[in-house]
């Protein structure tokens, strides 16, 4: 959905999204890394299960909520991408205990 400017030469970072191996750059937030990999949808709402993706990228809309390394409701646009991060779609409401 977003492409990178050609002169961008930061270090490559590897991570997974719903199990699929992907790559982005050092300095990316989780939300930016998803957008750069063509991923527009990162969660389904708890209310009606509709698809949502990053909207404001500045921490106010809470649309880019994802599960990162097992912790849900993380704001993807505020978390720096780290090597080996396990990022997952959030479907519906969070559970008190992981299934």
């Amino acid at each position: 959905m977003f492409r990178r400017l050609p002169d961008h030469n930061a270090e490559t970072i590897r991570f997974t999204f719903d199990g699929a191996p992907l790559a982005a750059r050092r300095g990316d937030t989780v939300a930016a890394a998803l957008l750069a990999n063509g991923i527009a949808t990162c969660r389904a709402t708890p209310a009606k299960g509709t698809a949502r993706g990053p909207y404001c990228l500045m921490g106010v809309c809470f649309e880019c909520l994802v599960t990162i390394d097992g912790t849900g409701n993380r704001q993807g646009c505020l978390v720096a991408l780290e090597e080996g991060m396990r990022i997952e779609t959030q479907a519906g409401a969070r559970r008190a205990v992981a299934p």
Partner: protein
Amino acid sequence: MNRIDAAAALAPRYDLVVIGAGPAGQSAAITAAALGITTLVVDENLAPGGQIHRGITTTPVTDRAVLGEDYWRGLPIAERFLASGADYAPAAKLFSLLPSGDEPGRHAEIELGVSIAGQARPVFAGQVIVATGAMERPFPIPGWTLPGVLTAGAAQIALKAHGLVPEGRVVLAGTGPLLLLVAAQLRAAGATIAAVLDTTPSANRAGAARHLLDFLRSPYLAKGLALLARARGGPRRIAGVTAMRAEGEDRLRAVTFTAGGGEQRIEADVLLLHQGVVPNTTISNAIGCDHHWDPLQFCWVPKRDSWLASSIEDVAIAGDGGGIAGADCAAESGTLAAIGAAHRLGRIDQATRDAMAAPVRAALEKLGRGRAFLDALYRPAEGFRIPAGNDTIICRCEEITAGQVRDAVAGGATGPNQLKAFLRCGMGPCQGRLCNLTVTEIVAAERGISPEQAGTYRLRPPFKPVTVAEIASLPQTNAAVKAVVRY
């Protein structure tokens, strides 16, 4: 600057805590640290600059022409901030701010809850400056929740901070100088902009005309002319857009809109919405600051005195979070707020304070000139603030429509706080950030009262989601442990 990457590295107490590292927060810290005031800057972003100068020290966009000189004016501020004596906690989450102390009617300190890398700590402060800036005004149209629809500011952040450019057919829609700037920046970065849909009401021109003389004598004239020159030869601009919806099932496919009396449809991969910015009042609301409704900019603005102090003792509000005035004014207002805080801390006497503030006030006076013209010219249309259609979602989190709000008001809900109980609107993860203005205006319109009378959501800490583990990581006093532990 002493960079803090772990909660344990925070000092237990600072003379001054500044919330936000945009132009206002950084300027406040520069001034305070130079006066020998122990200062902590807490910011949720990864690097200084706020949103306007987002990624100013880290941006991969090295061609200065792409983002333009106004962006790069943030670099000397960041350099001075990073060279200052302040403590700086980036990627930090501020989740609470409460007066603390035992004396009735007079609190001794302010207690802040700060979490860094999953560990929370209380921090005490003599003075606090809230510099949390602006956010883009909500733009409730049918389909604005579809993946592929973002704010124009989001695309600008992606470009500034990450060197990312939207792919495919990009449509920008709305009103205001930022919309034109983002269009020019994205074009310079190589994006394919299919169209710019201009929703500026044509009647605005008459209202703006009486402020024209001030505008012509202001620094905004040169900025405006430069922006128009950048926009020349740019993408197709369609004026007079009066209705608009984003279409698609699981993601955006097209934008349909009304202009010139007819309906048109443009296929689109990315839709970028923008109709101005408003103060981000989440924290000022949650800590109980008094606000008033600005009838010209259709938003809540915290009440402040001439030193930018809020109605809550020892808390000042600097920058766009106290009223939209732009980055240059924000930097000056941060300096002014820090001078005021230094006096309240007893570090400078009244004469020194007033002498230090005089050139800052003069700069603010000069920089503020011409703003009224822009505000009047780019007043957002009523139809894009208060959706005419009942099916339009206004609370994105809980998926509550304008029609549901109208029905609840007809059924007796008197204001935004009762609507929470009726509908849960404003109670999702964003805590009303993206719907509070719309809900206030719908209630006011339905009940025939003013937005001021309709009021807004009463917010409370935590300002951001915190995990139980973060709360549990807070150090406990022996008394607190004894109160709940049985032996």
